[in-house]
């Protein structure tokens, strides 16, 4: 088993390097298809410029070079593990991403964790009493949560919780300028986290609930579950020991996909709650044509997807021994 795992990992790593290089090149070329560059944006925002001002800026950013040269330079610096410099923020891309990474991870872990556990419990509950009142209520609520636009849900939560009830802060990640001890700081961040995490979690929980219910129903109808019942196992044992473990596989797959996309996929929630996450950074980078920053974030996300996929593959073999590494 061990040497096989080692070979598997080396092979996947080699694949990953090639994939990442292709992604970087493709992204670079794709982003250059968009008309206008960061200098257009900066000069436009400045509301005034002359030809020298514009030319000077292009030279400063290296945008006066042919695309091929720019691409070569970019790949060369990537090879040295340098993500380059953000035109817009005037700082290294890597540093910017690091700054935004922990808020993103915090939001992601909190919302996906809540959604996964909540979805699991609700899905199992619904499937155990399919077509019952509880099942119908859960299904309708899940459908509603899934269909509600995130920004609207977020704003309504702000209006209700912040404006009407005055319970939680409307935005930001912590109270600015309050010198707090670590415990108070953690509680402060938690208070700021609740609304955005809930908004996001409700959406994902809906997906997980539907998925878990369907998957459980399918498994519960299969022969080996009937066998387990027949040999006299308790309903509880059958449900959690036999059915759940099989039914959870699609959930893990979807979780993997969502972990990969959540890095940039929480834009709406980050904007509404002024949460300083990576999604917002990427979103703004598009409109500002901050190509280096955008490429950096995309590259970072693609690495994450690759790592998560690998982790999901390994997790499959733990959950279901019939699946082997290839």
């Amino acid at each position: 088993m061990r040497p096989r795992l080692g070979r598997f990992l080396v092979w996947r790593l080699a694949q990953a390097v090639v994939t990442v290089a292709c992604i970087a090149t493709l992204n670079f070329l794709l982003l250059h298809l968009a008309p206008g560059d960061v200098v257009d944006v900066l000069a436009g925002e400045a509301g005034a410029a002359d030809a020298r001002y514009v030319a000077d800026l292009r030279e400063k950013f290296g945008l006066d070079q042919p695309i091929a040269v720019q691409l070569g330079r970019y790949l060369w610096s990537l090879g040295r593990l340098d993500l380059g410099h953000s035109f817009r923020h005037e700082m290294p891309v890597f540093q910017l991403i690091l700054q935004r990474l922990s808020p993103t991870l915090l939001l992601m872990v909190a919302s996906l964790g809540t959604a996964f556990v909540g979805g699991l419990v609700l899905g199992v509950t619904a499937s155990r009493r399919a077509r019952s009142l509880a099942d119908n209520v859960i299904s309708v609520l899940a459908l509603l949560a899934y269909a509600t636009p995130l920004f609207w849900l977020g704003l309504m939560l702000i209006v209700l919780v912040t404006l009407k009830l005055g319970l939680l802060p409307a935005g930001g990640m912590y109270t600015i300028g309050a010198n707090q001890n670590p415990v108070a700081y953690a509680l402060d961040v938690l208070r700021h986290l609740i609304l955005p995490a809930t908004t996001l979690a409700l959406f994902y929980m809906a997906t997980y609930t539907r998925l878990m219910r369907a998957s459980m129903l399918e498994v519960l109808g299969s022969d080996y579950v009937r066998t387990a019942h027949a040999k006299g196992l308790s309903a509880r044992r059958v449900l959690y020991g036999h059915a759940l473990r099989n039914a959870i596989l699609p959930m893990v797959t979807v979780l993997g996909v969502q972990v990969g996309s959540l890095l940039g996929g929480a834009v709406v929630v980050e904007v509404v709650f002024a949460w300083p996450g990576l999604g917002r950074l990427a979103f703004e980078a598009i409109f500002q044509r901050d190509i280096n920053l955008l490429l950096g974030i995309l590259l970072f996300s693609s690495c994450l997807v690759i790592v998560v996929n690998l982790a999901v593959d390994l997790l499959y073999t733990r959950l279901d021994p019939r699946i082997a590494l290839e």
Partner: protein
Amino acid sequence: MRSLKSVCTTLAMVLMAAAALIAIGSAGAQGRRGGTLNFILKPEPPHLQGALSTADPIWQATSKFHNGLLNYDPNLNPVPELAESWQVSPDNRTMTFKLRRGVKFHDGHDFTSADVKFTMEEVIKKYHPRGRTVFAKLEEVQTPDPYTATFKFSAPSPYVMFVLNASETPMLPKHVYGGSDPRNNPANSAPIGTGPFRFMKWEKGQFILAERNEKYWDAGKPYLDKLIFRIVPDASARAVGLESGDLDVGGPWPVPIADQARLGGLAHLALETRGYTMVSAMLYLEFNMRDPIFKDLKVRRALAHAINPAQFAAVVWFGSAAPATGPISDKLTRFYSPSVPRYEYAPKKAEALLDEAGFKRGADGVRMRLSLDAAPYDENYLRSGEFVREQLRQVGIDASMRSQDAPTYFRRIWTANEFQLNLYGISNTPDPTIGVQRLYWSKNIISGAPFTNGSGYANPQMDRILEAAQVESDPQKRKKLWDEFQQFAMTELPIIPLLRLDMVTIMNKRVKNLAAGGLGIYDTFADVYVER
């Protein structure tokens, strides 16, 4: 007799002392020390250095950390800031500024005329977006002593007197910026100025924290302990923040314009329109004069008659605008002239003009199909585009709007020139040589630079008027030239000035003194305070 005199003297002295006490008392009541102000900054700026960019959020932020030589009163008359007094020679070629003594940068260094010379010659003239244009005639800044800075011009540049405030021309420390490319200086993102607030921290995507400059030269000021620039990207979230009291001040137009009246109606919020004369924003509909269709003056005039500006201001801008009569805002009283050709709303007249020009309605009722690009970076401009499109449809012009983002739009209009109608807002700035000439002067047709002469309009007579106004040092004669310009611009009509935009600051009523000067949210905030 003697005793009466002495009684009188004593009485006078007592009265004077009482008057002085009252004065002190009222000065004390004017500003309350302490407190924090939460100020909305949108969008998050790339840096905080107004000497390198005139972007709106940079203007708002840079002026809290820096000072200019001058400040301006509500009528845009210069008042002292770092310069205590100044003198302009009759030929407008020499401006002498006497600097305030004892002014220190945040790092403890003295501010002297060497900093003025350095800022003007090495930074503003070389790297300011309009520095090369505005200070084109500035040959040298002489420094006969540490507290005198003398600007020497090769030709009169009267407009320079109106751009010496902290946002447009901040005074930078030579010892920090000297000897390297100012564009790469770390102080651009962590400013070191002489201003009332010291930069503390910038958490990207969240806030910029500034604290009171304890050693500010204007003793007792600023009143605020802390100034926090809050970065709140979502307009609805900004509205909620203002409503909940979490955010104190934001402008221009910090929330969707349709939501403005509701917020203004809340007991704790106020709408403030003062403080934007320096900007004097206008909404222009611009023709691409390279397009053969618009070579015919009748077509340009027809479009002017087809649009109802009063309805436009009311319906799209909810009253945050007023019909414009010409290219110069009537708020710029020094230059505005009402005696220009007017194009009243008269769709019948528009149709007749189009008929005359040979654009008859086709079988489908359409005379011509045009493209209309509205500046995409502001929701209000897009709504404006929809309004204009509907108005044009009434007279048989089918205008189609393009959906695009800001960089695409800038490229299309000012680099590729691939457009027909362009609708956008632009600032007049305090002087038309800076803010208006750029759109009408043939020498300002510059490929690749946004907000230059994008229409491609070129007329020798227009150039002559503008160039004469650049160097005319007599205010009366200069006003005459600008009158002539306005008349000619409205006769030629390469641009239809549709509206004067009245920008709005929304603020909590606990914030005081915000609009006392002429610069509003672009002022230093040394005088701003909050009530408990």
